[in-house]
């Protein structure tokens, strides 16, 4: 795999009120790899993700995504960057007032000039890829937890973005659904060449999909590197995470 950096985070720190949530966080993610950001609940994983997505302003440090310094983007540049990213939210983030088909087609409707029939065909293809047949006209509230996640993944990848972010994709899923979702994510990387950044603390999932891990503990990076190095790490927290 090429060692081209797609994400570079340097010295990222964040304080909310009097609470320091991130302290000098630095790591890189590489093209074509699955990078897993992991750590215990409350360690700052989701805060890192929100900084990467531009949902939080950067207080201190530098974040570059696909060669764009995200603190230095105007509205149009930010929009162009978003079009190259797919985001999969922990609870799906599907708009509950729209059907699954409308949700997945939304980015295509808003950002392309394709006709409705073609958009429908593309959406049905993506849903099929996610093993979701017959849900086009259903509302998110009518789907099971696993189906909801897969529908959200279909929306995240409907524009075929080169970079996909997933926030706790396995949360609330049973082991079989989780394994199936992991398989889909790995297929996306293999078939579409996507670079994927995943926030999770599911050890079984990490062992299946991760190429590289970034371990956060209490807002600090305590390990970053290849998964095989993490498994052999002497760091107590990292060792305990994988071996207890």
């Amino acid at each position: 795999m090429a060692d081209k950096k797609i994400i570079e985070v340097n010295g990222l720190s964040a304080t909310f009120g009097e609470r320091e949530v991130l302290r000098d966080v630095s790591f890189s993610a590489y093209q074509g790899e699955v990078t897993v950001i992991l750590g215990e609940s409350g360690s700052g994983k989701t805060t890192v993700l929100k900084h990467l997505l531009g949902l939080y302003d950067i207080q201190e440090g530098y974040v570059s995504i696909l060669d764009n310094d995200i603190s230095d983007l105007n509205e149009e540049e930010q929009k162009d960057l978003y079009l190259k990213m797919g985001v999969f939210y922990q609870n799906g983030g599907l708009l509950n007032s729209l059907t699954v088909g409308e949700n997945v087609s939304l980015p295509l409707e808003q950002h392309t000039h394709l006709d409705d029939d073609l958009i429908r065909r593309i959406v049905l293809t993506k849903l099929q890829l996610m093993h979701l047949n017959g849900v086009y006209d259903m509302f998110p509230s009518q789907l099971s937890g696993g189906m909801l996640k897969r529908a959200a993944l279909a929306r995240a990848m409907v524009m075929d973005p080169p970079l996909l972010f997933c926030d706790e994709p396995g949360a609330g899923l049973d082991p079989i659904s989780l394994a199936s979702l992991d398989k889909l994510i790995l297929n996306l990387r293999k078939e579409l060449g996507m670079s994927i950044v995943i926030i999770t603390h599911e050890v079984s999932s990490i062992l299946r999909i991760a190429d590289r891990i970034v371990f956060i503990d209490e807002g600090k990076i305590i390990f970053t590197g290849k998964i095989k190095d993490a498994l052999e790490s002497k760091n107590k927290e990292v060792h305990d995470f994988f071996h207890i």
Partner: protein
Amino acid sequence: MVKPKIHNNSKDPDKDFKIEQSTLYLKYSLLLGDLDRWIPAVQEYIKNMQDPITEINLDGLKKIDSAGVAAILQLKDELIKNSKDVKIVGGSPSIRKKIGLFSYQEPPASRDRRRMSFFESTAESFLNFYHDYMVRYFTLAADVLYWSVTDIFKSRTHRKGEFYNQAVLIGVNAVYIICMLSFIIGLVIALQSAAQLRNFGANIYIVDLIVISMMREMGPLITAILVAGRSGSAIAAEIATMKVTSELDAIKTMALNPIRFVIVPKMHGSIITMPFLTILANVMGILGGMLIAYLYLDIGPEIFINRMGETLYNRDILIGILKSLVFAVLIVLTGSFFGLNVEEGAEGVGKVTTQAVVVAISIVIIADSIIGLIFY
């Protein structure tokens, strides 16, 4: 309810502990079920003691749980008041491990703040209100109004048919309730006035009273209050739920502007439908007044309408319409503002929904007074 089992080996509290010189020796077990008996007994002993206790010895203790640890630590805190230091000593490794595990330490106070004077705290409250509410409200207002104007002819910033959906939700669905309540209010105002006017032989002035009050004041105000209650709350709840469930983040990361995508169609729907709802409210209120004028003051519809033509000026109608437009903007802005400022969780959604309704109705009444003063 299951009563906690008393694990103590002894029924006599004196045997659970002993005090020699300045040391309190704990024995047997100190479990949740023992505390009701143990704590008063120890306290009674300590109260009658001359010398302060400086040591709690756990060597004789066989069992302890989290409640027991809490009781020992609390006892230590109480004893420290009478002596410089109290040490907890002895105990098997298992007992010491539990003491460590269940020890609760007060988090250090974040900042030692001196007590503020009344004026300082009032000024700080005002500044917080200014930054947390006023600045953010007017920033949102500027954003929403800017995009509402620039997006009038752009359909790609929101979903197809969204304006129509919002017009139906905010306007069309409110028609029945607004018609019914406006009719009743017109009827009641006329009824209350009729008797007074008849005493003075001024029956015909019922028309002036009803028409002007409905057109300039009651029609727009009743409509705005009902829409604030119905749609203001719905807007706040919808946006708050979207924020809590990451839908707004998802919209943003799909390279869409949440204000243009979610709020602007509501603003358009509201601005278009509110004047029509207000006109309907005016008409229904006047019809209610007309009914009473006919039944109680013998003023027939023809006379009523003729008099209405003499009384009513275009200015009155336009002021009513202007008010309805201002109210439409304020209701959507207030609902959106509180929806966007929700804190996490279902409780937060309920809270901002209530706040949105109360504030929207208050702002509408204040705006009504200001417009009334300007166009008096």
